[in-house]
């Protein structure tokens, strides 16, 4: 008998629509749709995709409980041998959804889950050792390579075969420790590793330590009425015409605009160029993304000392962590030198 797979995709890969459909509620179709079709072909000898769950990225992330209730009901009803989600590439909301679906289905129902993500996708952290995640490139051009890798893992898991190490099977390390037998005892291995290090030779640790990069919270502002507050957004709000040509996705730069003499980011003068969300509401009232109007009002009312003369902006969608770090350093440097006391960063 063939094994059963259920597939999870977002509104885009589910062929419902783009950002304008990102608010759609989850639905289930008893057929293979989008990447599930290619996947189905790859497993057809041994398994079958019995249906595809499609959910809008915004809807999932904004209504996780309702979405998961629907999804869990479907999964319980069909009781698949494996659940496949994505691949989500570097799409953050899609990655969070794949991780959310994957971890709950795996933890609550014990069904193995396979997904695919770019190494910088924020969803990867949220998977937290539940789903098997295939490392995929940052955009959908990697679909062709991703699906066979995901299919290979899915077949193994569905058939209950033993899973090998990450580097052998092609998934990202899950942070799990396995007992393995070695022909050399620990003290010997440790000394050998130490000698390799002394000689500057390549060595491989048996237990990689997690890297925690946290920043100490900065001290709070003592007197808000004397403080200068700066506004920063990753929501892609720019002066109409986008004079600095900031990219609508995978930003390579940021912009700053003088807002000293205006009271709000009005819909005529400003707009969003962000390619990762439906721009209708932000274009009507850009202050919904970057609330300059209310900061100015607080300044006028004496609640805050001053709104910093410049407002900083870039696009957060698909932007690499490396670029985001550079932008943060450059903007932080300017704000520090200008004596800014506090910063509001808004994200979409």
């Amino acid at each position, binding site marked *: 008998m063939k094994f059963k797979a259920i597939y999870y995709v977002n509104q885009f890969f589910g062929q419902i629509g783009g950002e304008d459909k990102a608010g759609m509620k989850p639905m289930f179709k008893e057929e293979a749709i989008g990447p599930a079709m290619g996947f189905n072909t790859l497993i057809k000898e041994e398994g079958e995709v019995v249906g595809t769950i499609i959910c809008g990225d915004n809807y999932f992330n904004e209504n996780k409980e309702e979405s998961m209730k629907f999804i869990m009901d479907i999964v319980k009803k069909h009781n698949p041998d494996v659940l496949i989600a994505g691949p989500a590439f570097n799409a953050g909301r899609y990655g969070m959804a794949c991780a959310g679906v994957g971890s709950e289905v795996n933890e609550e129902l014990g069904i193995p889950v396979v997904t695919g993500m770019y190494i910088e996708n924020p969803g990867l952290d949220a998977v937290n050792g539940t789903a098997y995640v295939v490392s995929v490139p940052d955009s959908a051009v990697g679909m062709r390579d991703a699906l066979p890798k995901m299919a290979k893992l899915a077949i193994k898991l569905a058939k209950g075969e033993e899973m090998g190490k990450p580097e052998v099977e092609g998934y990202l390390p899950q942070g799990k420790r396995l007992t393995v037998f070695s022909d050399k005892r620990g003290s010997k291995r440790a000394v050998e590793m130490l000698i390799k290090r002394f000689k500057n030779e390549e060595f491989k640790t048996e237990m990689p330590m997690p890297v925690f990069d946290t*920043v100490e919270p900065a001290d709070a502002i003592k007197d808000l009425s004397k403080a200068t507050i700066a506004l920063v957004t990753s929501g892609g709000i720019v002066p109409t015409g986008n004079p600095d040509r900031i990219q609508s996705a995978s930003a390579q730069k940021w912009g700053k605009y003088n807002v000293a003499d205006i009271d709000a980011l009005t819909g005529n003068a400003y707009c969003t160029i962000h390619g990762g969300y439906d721009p209708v*509401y932000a274009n009507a009232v850009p202050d919904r993304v970057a609330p300059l109007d209310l900061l100015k009002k607080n300044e006028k009312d004496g609640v805050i000392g001053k709104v910093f003369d410049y407002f900083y902006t870039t696009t957060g969608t698909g932007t690499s962590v490396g670029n985001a770090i550079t932008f943060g350093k450059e903007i932080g440097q300017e704000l520090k030198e200008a004596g800014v006391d*506090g910063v509001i960063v*808004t994200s979409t």
Partner: protein
Amino acid sequence: MVKEIERFGIPVVHMSTITTISEAVGANRIVPTIAIPYPVGNPNLSEAVELDLRTKLVKRALTALTTEVTEITQF
């Protein structure tokens, strides 16, 4: 960006809808917002009610900046 700006010793408050991402990237002060396409607003409300909501969200952000924290904190 939030983290790198805070590294300069300036308190930063992150207003974001997907707070799980915000926490994952290491924001210390977080104000949960309304929705991805309109974090600080809600076009489904009447103008007056939306203004009231927006005023409260910004006030919460300012409160966050004046509150000492030692770990990731949602306001």
